[in-house]
């Protein structure tokens, strides 16, 4: 095990795959010479050269379209969209082209490609550089979607994404880039479609993703210690495929579900999870399903405002205390 930041684990994941497979190449805006605006790709250009690690013009449609064209002709590109908010400028390429090509072509077209992007809030960047939009991607048939919460997961899931034969979107939470954690030495490849149970409790199952996992864990500590409420915490990790077995099993054990979502309220991933549980786990439920989300507002910029908009550990504690007996 080595201790790495989430940021360095991203670079390590990409480097591992560039090293392993000549068909992998990586491109985006300011990613090569500058090592990325979040310094997540430092050293890749130096190590792999300008043929495989490339700086692009500010042309997100061209970048994602190029990844698609390269993938269908035998490469395994990794493209970066600097902030996940900018997926909106190339949403046609992602949602209408990449997601549908295999299906429409009756399986003729293969798209082994990865789109990495810095997602989520906490950096006081305001409403256009802070969105958690993993639910946008989850809503599109044909896309696989992961959102890792730790350095080990981000390395392992990037590697899994690169090796997957289908298009995968990797949502890296930008507030986690500085987080440190143990990452297995040597080759590390994780599995898409697997949630992780991080903590077992009796009273309530909290299902969270990315940054919210850490807040859920912190809240669970407090709830246990200060209020005698014992919570299971599940890190979803992968929205598509979704590990419903783990989620349903954990909810069945506690009889209660609380989702903690960074995305704004309406049609967030938690709504989907809630609807699955309300159908398939209904008879095991002991009380209402509770969703804790960013309220349905664009994200404000000033620090106090932002901190009180994205779900905090305090808010999770409060809501669970109020809603779970």
């Amino acid at each position: 095990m080595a201790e790495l930041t989430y940021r360095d684990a991203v670079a390590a994941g990409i480097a591992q795959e560039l090293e392993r497979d000549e068909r992998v190449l990586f491109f985006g805006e300011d990613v090569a010479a500058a090592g990325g605006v979040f310094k997540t790709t430092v050293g890749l250009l130096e190590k792999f050269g300008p043929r495989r690690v490339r700086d692009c013009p500010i042309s997100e449609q061209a970048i994602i379209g190029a990844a698609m064209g390269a993938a269908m002709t035998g490469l395994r590109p990794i493209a970066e969209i600097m902030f996940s908010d900018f997926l909106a400028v190339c949403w046609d390429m992602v949602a209408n082209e990449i997601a549908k090509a295999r299906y429409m072509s009756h399986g003729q077209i293969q798209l082994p490609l990865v789109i990495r992007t810095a997602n989520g809030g906490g950096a006081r960047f305001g409403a256009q550089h802070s969105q958690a939009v993993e639910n946008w991607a989850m809503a599109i048939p044909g896309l696989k979607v992961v959102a890792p919460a730790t350095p080990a997961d981000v390395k392992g899931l990037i590697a899994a994404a690169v090796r997957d034969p289908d298009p995968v979107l990797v949502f890296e939470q930008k507030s986690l880039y500085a987080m440190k954690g143990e990452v297995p030495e040597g080759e590390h490849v994780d599995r898409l479609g697997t949630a992780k149970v991080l903590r077992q409790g009796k009273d309530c199952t909290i299902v969270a993703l990315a940054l919210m996992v850490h807040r859920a864990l912190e809240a669970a500590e407090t709830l246990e210690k200060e209020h005698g409420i014992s919570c299971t915490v599940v890190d979803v990790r992968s929205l598509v495929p979704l590990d419903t077995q783990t989620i349903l099993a954990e909810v069945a054990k506690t009889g209660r579900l609380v989702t903690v979502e960074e995305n704004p309220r309406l049609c967030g991933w938690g709504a989907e999870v809630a609807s699955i549980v309300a159908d398939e786990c209904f008879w095991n439920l002991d009380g209402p399903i509770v969703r804790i989300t960013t309220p349905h507002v664009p994200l404000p910029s000033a620090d106090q405002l932002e901190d009180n908009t994205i779900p905090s550990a305090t808010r999770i504690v409060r809501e669970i205390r109020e809603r779970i007996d």
Partner: protein
Amino acid sequence: MATTTKRKKAAAADDIGQETRLELYRLQVELRYCEKRAYDLFLQNLIKGTSHLSLGQEAIAAGFGVAMRPDDWTFCTYRGHAHTLARGASMTGVLGELMGRSCGLLAGKGGSMHLTDVEHGVMGSYAIIGAHLPVAAGAALSAQYRGTEQVSVCFFGDGTTNIGAFHEAINFAAVWKLPVIFVCENNLYMEYTAIHTVTAVDHPAADRAAAYGLESVLVDGNDADEVYLTAMKYINRARKGGGPALIEAKTYRHSGHSRADPGKYRPEGELEKWLERDPLKIYRERLLQVGFAEGTLTDIETETMRKVEEATAAAKASPPPALDLIDKDVWADGGAAWRN
């Protein structure tokens, strides 16, 4: 621009071998007959949904089709029947797809707007304006990266030159000198709106080439020889590392935009004028002029019609797609599961 066109015309007389000439004719006839057949099949309500014909625009698909290497790639739009056939795709596969039959190129899953035949280098037909230009650039990047000397050819209409993806893709390709040929088929209209009413320049592609450091290339899209020679020139250049080209081919569609469109927005006499310049008519006359026998041409026509009949019969005989296709091929594992 006028000069460019002239130089090409002159060249045409010399550089094209007899065999190539016959193939150019045969292909145009195939595209024409097959599109006409598609039109008949609509009228019989055997083709549902929409459909966009290339009647009148065959010289472009044929000229490029003949100029391309088998391992080159084509990217088409919804108006892509002709371009798909021009690469050698099965006519039964094309008509079958239009009719939503299991023999269709996509087994009925894609429909007329998404014809794809990877085996023949047809890397998809794209129905959202502009999207395939970046994709074609990406394929070219792959060819360049792997050193295969493949070239990517991307067809689109005049209306497409006003959308953002056009701009991004061509700059991107130019900066990286990618082997991709962007071919604008200027048929004067977007759906029902004349291109000149919504575009700030006269030649929506040619007048913009300079914005990407590319030379302005404007050709007569109804002259298969001219298209072929231009295609050869720029494809070969791209193959050798000379980078992308943007070619504007002036043409006209004889029918409406799609099956629903009677084309009433056209000024009187416009269609008639262009029918005079029908690419098949032009080319047939030229072949007779340069010494081909009438019989050689009628043989081609008869043989092609036979193929069309055969394909039609095969497509009609093909059953509708099996319903279990609905849940197939979202993923590479063949399935559609989003959960465990």
